[in-house]
């Protein structure tokens, strides 16, 4: 991505976020039963969607890396895991803030909540593995293996917790809610998508640069490697 395109995307993301906040906070009507608290959904739902989107991209990249290795794929896998962890954390925190006035509790042992929490801990482990392995080749292969295992685990976790206990409300469909709410949610979903792309691109560039630094002069001291890159 060229520099002007990157700056354009940052500006687009900011514009969408600001206008989305106005739409969600002021323009859309308050919910009949939940009142203004429901407005958290305009952030919570897009954040959860983006976390799952990032996790899906991570899975795809991991499979593709094991198929045919490249440093670009490894850097992108690192970016998706880290940004996905960020969006998942936002989704869970906002959900807890929403859950307290609505359900009466911050946390419930519901399949979706529990699956998301396990997913976040698993990706934290994935990122820890990346920090703890120094050899870039091994790190790439091993984290790809771990990424695949995490992604395969998600449906199993969801299913097992569903048997275990359930509380999360059924998703509303566009047919059952006010059209203004649908617009507010969709607008914010696109805003979050723009933020996701901005973060992914930025994180990918950093990851790829550090891969290049590691592989070009692998045994040199850090200071020398930095001098080579800059």
């Amino acid at each position, binding site marked *: 991505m060229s520099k002007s395109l990157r700056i354009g995307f940052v500006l687009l993301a900011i514009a969408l976020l600001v206008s989305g906040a106005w739409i969600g906070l002021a323009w859309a009507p308050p919910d009949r039963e939940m009142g203004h608290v429901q407005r958290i959904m305009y952030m919570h739902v897009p954040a959860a969607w983006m976390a799952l989107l990032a996790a899906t991209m991570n899975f795809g990249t991991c499979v593709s890396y*094991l198929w045919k290795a490249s440093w670009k794929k490894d850097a992108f896998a690192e970016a998706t895991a880290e940004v996905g962890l960020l969006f998942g954390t936002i989704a869970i925190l906002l959900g807890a803030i929403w859950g307290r006035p609505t359900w009466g509790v911050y946390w419930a042992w519901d399949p979706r909540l529990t699956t998301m929490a*396990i997913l976040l*801990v*698993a990706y*934290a*482990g*994935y990122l*820890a*593995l990346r920090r*703890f*392995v*120094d050899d870039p080749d*091994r790190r790439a*292969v*091993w984290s*790809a*293996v*771990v990424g*695949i*295992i*995490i992604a*395969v*685990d998600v449906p*199993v*976790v969801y*299913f*097992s*917790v569903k*048997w*275990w206990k359930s509380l999360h409300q059924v998703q509303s469909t566009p047919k059952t809610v006010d059209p203004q709410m649908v617009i507010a949610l969709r607008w914010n979903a696109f805003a979050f998508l723009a933020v996701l792309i901005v973060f992914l691109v930025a994180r990918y560039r950093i990851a790829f640069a550090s891969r290049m630094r590691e592989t070009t002069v692998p045994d040199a001291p850090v200071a020398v490697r930095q001098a080579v890159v800059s």
Partner: protein
Amino acid sequence: MRRPGLWASTWVLFRKDLLLEWRSRARVNALLFFSLATLLLFSFALGPDTALLRRNAGGYLWLALLLASVLALGESFRVERENATLEGLRLVPVNARAIFLAKAVANAVLLAGLGVLLVPVLVALLDVRIILPWTQLLTLIVLGCLAIAAPGTLYGAIASHARARDVLLPLLLFPILIPALVAAAKGTALVFEGDPMGQFSSWLALLTSFDLIYWGLGVLLFPRVVEE
């Protein structure tokens, strides 16, 4: 020279792993007393409420096994790493899948043996009664230990070559094992408390599908983990 097939080399390696455990019995003993200590700790942490302890006994059994499994897996790869024996085996050359199968089965056997030894302790210590047939409990222990062993062996091989491996292995392994933990602990609780609703078979099915998925993934991915 004819190279031995997958099953032949798996069998040889499996016997090698168990023989190693047998010759250094101190390790197995330490593992056993470690799990006994965990069981005691759970009881002390929860207080002297006998009814509560009995109701939670299934969960304690699996938590004790899970904690012990991290130590057992770490040990089994520490021995290999210190003598660079995995690299040696790969040079023979032995099929990497045979290494995975042998190691995972050996770990599962070790853990299942530990689980079987812990049941009488639960009966004595927490006044647990085994209401369903004991064969069902045995099936559960075997399937549950297989469920720990497959991803555990895969992750053990990875973590053994990383820094901070003692922290890394449980951090990677525990989140993945939650479905198996839920199914095994619930199933064990049903064995101890009775199963009026007939739910036992569905937990067994969940555990079996977990086993199939992770043994499949292990066989598929392990060669990539140990390649040079």
